[in-house]
């Protein structure tokens, strides 16, 4: 069964550094998402992406965050200048053709970001 894959599984970075989290969504999916989960807390929506542009974003997704689909297969989340509070598990997700509201999201296994 096709999967969403995320790399790396764990990234450690220093405060103020830029990080890029990478995702390969399921190949025929059209809608892409990033979520984060701070340790012990709920899964929070960051951003959705369709047709090469952001569709929705939450208040968490401020100017230090950006997303890109550089080559038709990868979907990246960049954090420009990391803060300690960015430490979290970041999940990529994609959903199938049409992006209908009843389509479930398929999640990757996440990238654990640790900012020191």
């Amino acid at each position: 069964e096709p999967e969403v894959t995320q790399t790396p599984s764990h990234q450690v970075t220093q405060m103020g550094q830029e990080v890029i989290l990478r995702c390969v969504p399921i190949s025929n999916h059209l809608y892409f998402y990033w979520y984060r989960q701070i340790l012990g807390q709920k899964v929070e929506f960051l951003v959705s992406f369709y047709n090469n542009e952001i569709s929705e974003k939450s208040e968490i997704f401020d100017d230090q965050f950006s997303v890109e689909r550089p080559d038709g297969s990868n979907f990246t989340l960049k954090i420009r200048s990391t803060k300690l509070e960015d430490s979290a598990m970041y999940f990529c997700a994609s959903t199938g053709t049409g992006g209908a509201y009843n389509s479930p999201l398929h999640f990757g296994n996440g990238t654990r970001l640790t900012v020191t």
Partner: protein
Amino acid sequence: AQSVTQPDIHITVSEGASLELRCNYSYGATPYLFWYVQSPGQGLQLLLKYFSGDTLVQGIKGFEAEFKRSQSSFNLRKPSVHWSDAAEYFCAVRYNNNDMRFGAGTRLTVKP
């Protein structure tokens, strides 16, 4: 405001016992409802979903959930829990916009 509530942060059940995890949503219309499971260090796996029609939906791993409009609930159930069911369970809703909103999660511990 749209919201998803999972009232139970942590539940412990004995292996073989029945399980019910609660989920309530707040929305004017019927949302699209999902249950996901997260094992330690893993991503989110879809257990089941409800869109319309039969209010009792069957999922993977022997789970089922019942949509009750009058109670704005979508509780997850399993008749007999296995030790491998120990995980974090998230209820999620998707409204007439793009994103999916998650509840805070319920951590399930299974006693031998």
